[in-house]
């Protein structure tokens, strides 16, 4: 948007929304919505709490482990689907079901199978992110220009060279897009899962805050999660931008 000849970047409209929030909060219009400023104060306190830090650290660790596993899984499944018709038919069916199913309803079952520790959270991350990574990788593999593959073959590339020197790089933009989507889904999955079973302190904090009408803290926790999700996904977005230039150049 341009005002008085200056271009105002879109993110600045968020400031308007925040201002609106502050006003609604100050006017005390809805008791579940305290002013943004007091939420921010609580946020500063929140991130100093031991139980929050422990929960955040545990979640973060599980995230890194879970995402690593689902990238390996997802990319492999995507490549297998992209290269074999049968695998595509069989795996594709399951991947599609899991990618669109309300997996949250499975989280209580996961707890049963994987215990009350970190494993369950890691599995949640994997369960929520693998499928979309697989689907995007598959799209990426299908998207690879056949002439690039033929080029590799005509210069005598081995299967391994083909995979590591051509196919992987050619599908990279989609893979990254998939990883970003998977990440967003995993954050959502963890939050939903924790609301449903609350193995880590995150879900517990949400419950405590809402049960005790501590809405400042509640929103502070929510905002923290939002920021975390946005930071994570913009980090990958930045990586995507770096490979975007050739994604655009592809035919």
């Amino acid at each position, binding site marked *: 948007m341009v005002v008085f000849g200056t271009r105002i970047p879109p993110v600045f409209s968020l400031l308007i929304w925040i201002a609106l929030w502050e006003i609604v909060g100050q006017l005390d219009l809805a008791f579940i919505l305290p002013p943004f400023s007091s939420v921010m104060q609580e946020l500063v306190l929140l991130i100093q709490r031991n139980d929050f830090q422990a929960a955040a650290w545990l979640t973060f660790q599980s995230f890194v482990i879970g995402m690593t596993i689902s990238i390996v899984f997802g990319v492999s499944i995507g490549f297998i689907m992209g290269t074999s018709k049968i695998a595509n038919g069989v795996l594709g069916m399951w991947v599609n079901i899991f990618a669109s199913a309300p997996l949250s309803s499975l989280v209580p079952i996961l707890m049963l199978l994987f215990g009350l520790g970190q494993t369950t959270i890691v599995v949640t991350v994997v369960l929520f992110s693998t499928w979309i990574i697989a689907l995007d990788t598959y799209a990426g593999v299908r998207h690879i*220009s056949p*002439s*690039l593959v*033929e*080029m*590799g*073959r*005509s*210069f*005598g*590339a*081995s299967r391994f*060279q083909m995979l590591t*020197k*051509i196919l992987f*790089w*050619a599908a*990279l933009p989609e893979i990254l897009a998939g990883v970003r989507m998977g990440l967003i889904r995993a954050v959502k999955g963890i939050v939903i899962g924790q609301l449903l079973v609350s193995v880590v302190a995150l879900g517990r904090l949400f419950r405590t805050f809402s049960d005790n009408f501590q809405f400042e803290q509640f929103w502070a926790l929510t905002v923290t999660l939002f920021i975390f999700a946005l930071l994570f996904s913009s980090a990958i977005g930045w990586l995507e931008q770096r*490979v975007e*230039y*050739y*994604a*655009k*150049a*592809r*035919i």
Partner: protein
Amino acid sequence: MSVSAALDNSPKAATDDIVEVRNITKYYSPDVHALSNVNLSFPRGQMTTLLGPSGCGKTTLLKIIAGLLEPTEGDVLVNGKQVHGTGPERAFVFQDFALLPWATVLRNVAFGMELTKQDKREREDRARHYINEVGLAGFENKYPHELSGGMRQRVGLARALAVNSDVLLMDEPFSAVDEQTRRKFQEDLLALLANENKTVIFVTHSIEEAVYVSDQIVMLSPRPGRIHSIIRPEFSRDADPDEIRRDKNYLDTVEAIWADLRKYLD
């Protein structure tokens, strides 16, 4: 100009054919019959063009020669020996260039050698040489998306030249660049090939281009592709481009081919 009958190789060519195809038939599926019993010889050091209406099987034939497609029946011979699959004596130049978007011009040109694990230093020197040769000196560290279509095709050509194959296979190499660039490219290609001793097999839709660049033109009939006729344009290639384009033989050949092909169009 001589229009020889199909299958009847000119005696001179028969003595030294670098590539031969015998009884090639190709079905993509039971009801897609792309090529039917094609026999052809490609004389060493000459430029042969495959010409024909759209969908007649030109690309199919070229890919079979390259070893990228298996024929349903028939053999491909290189230097008299039957071959299966791709081989270092044949290099492909792609219509859509097939450059690695994430690699620089230098790495792209050296890529064929990278795959055969040649020493990095050596292959880059060689790549640089061919980058100069196709007139791209100074662009070594650019990425494909920073180049114009014509320049990208030159990178693809340099890559094929750099692996030092005897046979260059080109599938409509100029169709993705604009007309004026294309015309320039044709002239440059001829100049370049005059120095290198290459055999070129070239697919095009352009009758003028075919006649202008080739020693031998193979005309295919509509699907299933068969050899319709083989034409050897006969005019001196020593004249300058403009003169060639006014040459009576040149114009007659173009005209004869056009008269032949236009009946296949919708």
